[in-house]
């Protein structure tokens, strides 16, 4: 169609993860938001991007997370070419998508595929908060659903690292329906004995928290991650009272029985490997 000829966004491409790291202009030093110390960026990367002084878990991009979690060279991406359209013809949406595509070198807010963890095959989805705050529109919903279906077909587990502000406003009710879409696929997968591990990272809120993120066979989270349904400001305005400092942190959720464990990033791969081992190969290796 003529329209497609002028569609600039179709020119974007995904690039290998190693290249992404070189492309992102990282400073030599990074200031830790946790303890305000200045850390060598290289040092930070060696410690899984966790501050050695205060334990603050710095945000990870999807490529960084995949590298940190999966066996080297095992990742095979699925649906990398999928991109958002503008179903509601929402003003400025296309421009914002293009800006984030440039900024993150990703086509959308989630990277999906399969790889191995200590040799155990698994399907994996990693959300990236740099892209539209990791919000879920049609593409994020579709890619996650396809990753679940891939796990189902291959009889392998499904692991997701969530990082999302919730549903994407610019796709309106279609974003809301992605919660239902991923749920129907998860239910099918689960009924057939599929193993689903959800790891909530900072932040996991709104429609993502209120769908797949909260219904893993295992619900894990990283320390201090913000996890919740409604925003803190909205709650404070609604109930007119100040909230405790640790409100909606991973530790708060653990205390209230919403999580299985809070896991330090240095122990993440080991823990996942342990869960995968206990559940057998499930068609893996």
């Amino acid at each position: 169609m003529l329209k497609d000829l002028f569609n600039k966004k179709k020119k974007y491409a995904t690039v290998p993860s190693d290249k992404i790291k070189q492309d992102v202009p990282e400073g030599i030093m990074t200031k830790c938001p946790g303890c305000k110390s200045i850390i060598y960026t290289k040092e930070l990367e060696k410690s899984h991007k966790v501050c050695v002084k205060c334990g603050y878990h710095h945000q990870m991009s999807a490529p960084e997370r995949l590298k940190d979690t999966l066996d080297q060279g095992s990742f095979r991406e699925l649906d990398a070419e999928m991109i958002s359209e503008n179903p509601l013809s929402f003003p400025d949406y296309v421009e914002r998508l293009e800006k984030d595509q440039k900024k993150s070198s990703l086509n959308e807010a989630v990277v999906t595929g399969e790889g191995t963890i200590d040799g155990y095959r698994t399907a994996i989805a990693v959300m990236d908060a740099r892209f539209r705050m990791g919000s879920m529109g049609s593409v994020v919903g579709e890619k996650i659903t396809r990753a679940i279906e891939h796990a189902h077909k291959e009889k392998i587990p499904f692991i997701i690292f969530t990082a999302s502000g919730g549903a994407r406003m610019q796709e309106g009710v279609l974003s809301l329906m992605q919660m239902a879409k991923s749920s129907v696929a998860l239910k099918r997968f689960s009924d057939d004995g599929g193993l689903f591990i959800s790891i909530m990272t900072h932040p996991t809120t709104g429609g993502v928290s209120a769908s797949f993120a909260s219904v893993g066979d295992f619900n894990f989270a990283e320390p201090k991650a913000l996890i919740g349904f409604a925003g803190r400001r909205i709650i404070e305005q609604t109930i007119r009272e100040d909230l405790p400092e640790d409100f909606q942190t991973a530790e708060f959720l653990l205390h209230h029985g919403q999580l299985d464990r809070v896991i330090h990033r240095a122990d993440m791969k080991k823990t996942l490997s342990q869960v995968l081992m206990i559940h057998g190969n499930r068609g893996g290796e």
Partner: protein
Amino acid sequence: MGQRLDFERPLQELEDKITELHAFMEEKNVDLSDEVSRLQKRLSKMEGEIYENLTAWNRVQLARHPERPTTSDYIDRIFEDFLELHGDRLFGDDEAIVGGIATFEGQPVTVIGHQRGKDTKENLRRNFGMPHPEGYRKALRLMKQAEKFQRPVIFLLDTKGAFPGKAAEERGQSEAIARNLIEMAGLTVPIICIVIGEGASGGALAIGVGNHVHMLENSWYSVISPEGAAALLWKDSSLAQQAADTMKITAPDLKELNVIDEIIPEVRGGAHRNVEEQSKAIQTALVKSLEELTQLTKEELVNHRYEKYRNIGQYGFVTDTIGLK
């Protein structure tokens, strides 16, 4: 006729004039019936112009009309033998959601819906129809009960959203909503959902995963309220009217986006103008849906729901992908 909305003011003025003329005719014993019938014709033409060209915001106003029928108004009129059931067996009973067993056209059903209050006192008790986790867990308990006894479940959606509060977060608002989505996906009985007023976000969807989803003509359903969207996107909640339009939240919009099955026509001027007639329209839609869905086997029902939601969304593909290796 009830309370009038701002866009109905011209109608109100004309109606007042007609009433005045009637009074004048009686008082002075003069015949102005020509003038009256002229005005009445104008009124009916104006009604057509206004009600057949409602803006998205007009529909939001109608959906929020203080006299708009609620879930219990419809339960009373559409179902028989309704027996309300309470509690989630875990924490408490959330009156923002009502549910129970009933018969519909002689057939046993479970009916569950968000419940707003009719006045301030009832609204406080029902938390303005904004559920806590225990409300969603009550709904879950009742739908699982319906599944055990193989009766269809009918959900009436009408909420400004799940309640954003401290206690709701502590008790797992996210998990309660997420769990319902999963369980509704797998329920082996027919599920019919009808948006009767406001359908905001996950708080509505948590009882909204159905084989058929219908909307009343002047209801709205979206990822967020128009005010919320305006505040989030443009940092200005006074742009709600514009957001109502941009966000595509009306029944015709959702039909166009393939998210809902049927638009249930409303009484001219809104459901509150005639609850009896509106109830009949809903009843007609329910009969049709049930006839269709009760012919499906358990497995077919679950697959039907799967296919319905699996295909919602719009996306494209880049052509020159290098791909992560």
